[in-house]
């Protein structure tokens, strides 16, 4: 298929791998920020082609994984109301709250629907004027423009039975949180290509300078990722710390200005809780006071609800790139995709789920002795 097969070519992959081996002289640890990249790395086995000096760690860029359980609990409470049609992207439905997930709410009679776009949820609101339609607005900068558009349209058309349960997060503050942690071991980043199609990459330049860390905006196909790693390693080997753009077929420095304006019109920057990381200041988006009428937390009186979470798994360390999924004692035993202990096991983009699905052979071979001790 055009625009896909070119980026999955085995011969080209071998050439990139050889080039990477050639330029790598010592160990480097690189984080891919986005869950989509983690998924591609394990699905295609990209990391098997890397020289042993290069370690990939998986970042916090999976929106399902970092949505705090507090928001999941609010979603469950809202979705359980008989007057509500609760709309969500598919993979949020399996994320466990304290005692159940949205799929269970659906099985119990709640009207929970999978949609592909917040605008579909808005259309549902127009078709069901006597019911409240709530869209679970999760994600990074990538999904923010469409969510902003839904609110903008609802505002313009005066659609009062529509609202957003907002859990929007931003990439740059998460990267700073990782870099400023005393236990950080990340030396270079593959920045998330799709986030940058919206935001551009100028906002990463101060981070690269401040923390002396190379950041390469990278795409999602296997060859994109291999090339992104090559560019990062080259910078590290040469002692440079710049923002470079591997994904130039989709990303430019300034991003999509119209989308950014729309985001700024609807949302303001707020502190956000990240599952596994805790609250990071100025790391998320919330609706501006002008659009508060479309805020589901206010509409259903849940704004002050605080949910404390039990500590079971190491997903926080996994999300910060400090640990690999299989280093968790619960991995593959107490924690599986059917019964996830942590969100990183829930989403197909989550590092633990990706490891579980694709990586148990190596684990069986290399980690069996550790489990016995």
């Amino acid at each position, binding site marked *: *298929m055009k625009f*896909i097969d070119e980026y*999955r*070519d*085995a011969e080209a*992959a071998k050439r990139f791998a050889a080039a990477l081996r050639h330029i790598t002289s010592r160990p480097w640890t690189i984080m891919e920020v986005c869950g*989509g990249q983690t998924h591609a790395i*394990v*699905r*295609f*086995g990209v990391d098997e*082609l890397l020289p042993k000096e290069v370690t990939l760690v998986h970042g916090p860029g999976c*929106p*399902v994984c970092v949505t*705090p*359980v507090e928001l*999941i609990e609010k979603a469950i409470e809202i979705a359980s109301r008989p007057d509500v049609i609760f709309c969500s*992207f*598919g*993979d949020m*439905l*399996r994320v*466990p709250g*304290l005692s*159940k997930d949205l*799929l*269970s709410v*659906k*099985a*119990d009679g709640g009207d929970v629907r*999978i949609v*592909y776009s917040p605008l579909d949820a808005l259309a549902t609101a127009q078709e069901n004027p006597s019911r409240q339609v709530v869209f679970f607005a999760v*994600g990074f900068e*990538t*999904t923010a423009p469409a969510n902003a558009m839904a609110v903008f349209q609802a505002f313009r058309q005066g659609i009062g039975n529509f609202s957003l349960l907002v859990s929007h997060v931003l990439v740059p503050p998460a990267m700073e949180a990782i870099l400023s942690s005393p*236990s950080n071991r990340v030396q270079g980043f593959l920045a998330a290509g799709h986030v940058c199609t919206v935001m551009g990459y100028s906002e990463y330049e101060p981070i690269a300078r401040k923390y002396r860390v190379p950041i390469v905006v990278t795409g999602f196909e296997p060859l994109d990722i291999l090339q992104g790693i090559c560019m990062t390693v080259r910078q590290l080997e040469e002692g440079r710390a710049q923002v470079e753009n591997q994904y130039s077929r989709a990303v430019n420095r300034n991003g999509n200005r119209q989308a950014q304006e729309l985001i700024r019109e609807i949302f303001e920057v707020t502190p956000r*809780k*990240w599952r*596994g990381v*805790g609250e990071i200041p100025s790391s998320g988006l919330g609706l501006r006071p002008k659009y508060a009428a479309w805020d589901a937390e206010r509409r259903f009186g849940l704004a002050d609800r605080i949910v404390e*979470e*039990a500590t*079971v798994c*190491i*997903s*926080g360390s996994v999300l910060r790139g400090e640990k690999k999924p299989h280093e968790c004692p619960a991995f593959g035993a*107490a924690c*599986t*995709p*059917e*019964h996830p202990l*942590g*969100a990183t096991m829930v*989403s*197909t*983009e989550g590092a633990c789920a990706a490891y*579980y699905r694709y*990586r*148990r052979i190596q684990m*069986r071979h290399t980690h069996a002795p550790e489990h016995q001790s």
Partner: protein
Amino acid sequence: MTSEETPHFHCPLPIDEYTHVLLAHGGGGRLMHRLIEGLFLPMFHNPTLATRHDGALLECGDRKLAFTTDSYVVRPLFFPGGDIGTLAVNGTVNDLAMCGAHPLCLSSGFILEEGFSVASLRRIVQSMSQAAREAGVQLVTGDTKVVDRGKGDGVYINTAGIGVVMADRLIAPASVEPGDAILLSGDIGRHGIAIMAVREGLAFETTIESDCAPLAAPVLALLKARIEVHCLRDLTRGGLASALVEIAEAAQLHIGVRESAIPVREDVRGACEILGFDPLYVANEGRFVAFVAWRDAERALSLLLSHPLCAGAALIGSVGTEPQGLVTMRSSIGAERIVDMLSGEQLPRIC
């Protein structure tokens, strides 16, 4: 050295057991398997059921009969390439074919919802009649019930079927041997994407039609040519991946396949890329895998290729011994990965 102590992570307690049935319990993945293994198998316990085949194999004088049943609850009822009626006939015919049986006759039970259009019912029954003719079976007995408005989805159909087993040896995962060749009867993913496109109102440049078809003829052709067939499995819910994983687990052998050898049509691949689906897990209704002795592989492949329903057939891999019970796939960039069964339904990803 940095402290290994982990700060307070925000992780929920596990959900130990679902107390209610989820849609995923019918999705063909792990939850459904758990339901079968934890409830149905122990309760109905008997040697025929314990073989866990697509159909039951019953001795009847000097002949062996295959007996199977399936229920059809598809939404939408009509989709490009077929409707619930075509599915209800072909699905049961295919379950018989996968036992190496020549399908003879079917029963048909209708559960109709009050208010359902008789014109639609007529269309469905016409499809069933035509599908039965094409598959060479007769619908010989049936039942009709009507439920209150709002208690059904228009129409549900159950069919059961009986066939005569034509294979000399047991066709089942237990017969799979190391060294066997794995043949796939055509391109995958069409049915699931066709249904998804209609259900979700997704418009693609071309209409993707379901691959729904009766598979008895190509299977019987293999048996007639005395191909040493060890196992057959039609790919339905859960797709190619789930079928292979089930067989690898049941046979306790390793299945290795090559991604580049698995045919997927361009439009189906495109739709999967957009939705974040893996075609390996997308449903089919007219495709099967055949595990045959390696020495017969080429002959079997050319037999399949000569059949109009299997024009896209391909040799996709082989059976080995280690790692036991696992399916692995060589990816398009040349690395090896595990193919696992999905836990529930494939859910569209966020971005």
